[in-house]
């Protein structure tokens, strides 16, 4: 089974802090994604990466950055956390290379509260 592991399940951070959310996948997938999920708004794509050191903005990249130094690891960075970034963050990966390879596998989610 594909396993996507998010390092922190629950975090509480202060406004202005720099926050790192780490994600690791163990299936040699090409693509990795970061989403946030808020009640009534569904999943929204923040950033995705299709290769090491490559990244593309999603629908809501403002206030976030990402890093992919190794194929299996994709980090989401909140440079200066704000209360409107309180949310559940979901990391995901997909194999790539065709429709069946675009099936997305999600981690368990990281609940971030910014106070």
């Amino acid at each position, binding site marked *: 089974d594909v396993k*996507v592991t998010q390092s922190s399940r629950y975090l509480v951070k202060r406004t202005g802090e720099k926050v790192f959310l780490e994600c690791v996948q163990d299936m040699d997938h090409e*693509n990795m*994604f970061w*989403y946030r999920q808020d009640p*009534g708004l*569904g*999943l*929204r*794509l923040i950033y*995705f990466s299709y290769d090491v050191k490559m990244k*593309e903005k*999603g629908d809501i990249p403002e206030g976030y950055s990402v890093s992919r130094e190794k194929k299996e690891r994709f980090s989401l960075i909140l440079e200066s956390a704000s209360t409107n970034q309180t949310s*559940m963050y*979901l990391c*995901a990966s*997909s194999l790539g290379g065709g*429709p*069946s390879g*675009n*099936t*997305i*596998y*999600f*981690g*368990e*989610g990281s*609940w971030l509260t910014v106070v």
Partner: protein
Amino acid sequence: LAKTTQPISMDSYEGQEVNITCSHNNIATNDYITWYQQFPSQGPRFIIQGYKTKVTNEVASLFIPADRKSSTLSLPRVSLSDTAVYYCLVGDRGYQLIWGAGTKLIIKP
């Protein structure tokens, strides 16, 4: 990008078959149809994917008519543990998928 329309919520009872229909009128030739299940406080989980006709796996069946403008997820003999939100997505690239509100399925004893 193809957007999908599905019921906001549905109720059913244990042991029943549940069918959730999704409308995707603007589906493109290359698009696949994928369904996910999400429990509270967890990430979505892949259920099934198809392009046309019928696909079946160990947990569900997916029916897609010839015009591909809709699809129906069928869950046989549901149990209480099938209570979840079900998402229908259309696309051929993961980053293009548009996640709507999904269908909140509640199974009653």
